[in-house]
């Protein structure tokens, strides 16, 4: 076991932790969604890297090849990508609705408006 045998997992973990950091630390809702998407992408890599064998080819059966990479994780990740974009679309629709209601997509500002409704300019209007 040498240092580089687990290097792929560490790259994946770095990406996952960056995504988590963006989700926790940044108040902007669109940026939070981008962070969530990065976290998702790192999980795709977590699934795909163990399926790879050095010297193998893509799993399309042909007489001139004998070693193929594992096709099962690829199928699961194909499903996950499409579901991921569906959740992203739903999240963005929610953000647009929040922006209409509060005129802001910053989490701190939304919380402040929730605590003190008198601040809300739209409430003041009849």
């Amino acid at each position, binding site marked *: 076991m040498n240092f580089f045998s687990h290097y792929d997992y560490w790259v994946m973990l770095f990406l996952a932790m*960056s995504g*988590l950091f963006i989700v926790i630390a940044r108040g902007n809702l*669109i940026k939070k969604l981008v962070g969530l998407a990065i976290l998702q992408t790192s999980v795709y890599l977590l699934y795909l*890297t163990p399926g790879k064998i050095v010297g193998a080819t893509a799993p399309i059966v042909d007489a001139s090849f004998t070693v193929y*990479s594992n096709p099962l994780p690829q199928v699961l990740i194909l499903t996950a990508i499409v579901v991921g974009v569906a959740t*992203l679309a739903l999240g963005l629709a929610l953000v647009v609705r929040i922006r209409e209601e509060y005129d802001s997509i910053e989490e701190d500002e939304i919380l402040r408006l929730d605590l003190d409704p008198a601040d809300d300019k739209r409430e003041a209007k009849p």
Partner: protein
Amino acid sequence: MMIAVVALTRTRNLFAVVVLFGLYSFLTATVMVALDAVDVAMTEAAIGAGFSTVLLLGALHLCKSEEEKPAHKPWLPLAVTIGTGLVLVYGTWDLPPFSDATAPIHTHVAPRYLADGPRVTGVPNVVTTILASYRGFDTLGETVVVFTAGIGVIALLGRRRYVRRGKQ
């Protein structure tokens, strides 16, 4: 790829964030080609880099494009993420090393799919074989999820037009 993510974390202009995210998705697709996952790479390039970027730009058009300065220093989230990351790195020591052909993932169902799949279904691309035949119900469930998300988006954004029309 890692540089793109770090730049993305530090940028406050949301337009730059979205463009960097598209760049990151393309780089991920390249890595997936290197990992022999050609179907996944194609999907990621089309959906992750193309469609997601369009969605984000559309949402950005409806919102402000500048992020505010964070109100407090991000030391606590940084500590939490680094702590979680270290625990997970510790966990990777028990995982099989990269490109180990004797790992459990390569010895259970995958050989059967590779050996029988093309003969049973007549499709040489094993990914398509599993997606459409062996795990067809998965794909049906995925379609249901996408359909539900579409209904949700229409319910959230369609209401707005209805209200606006009501005011006129």
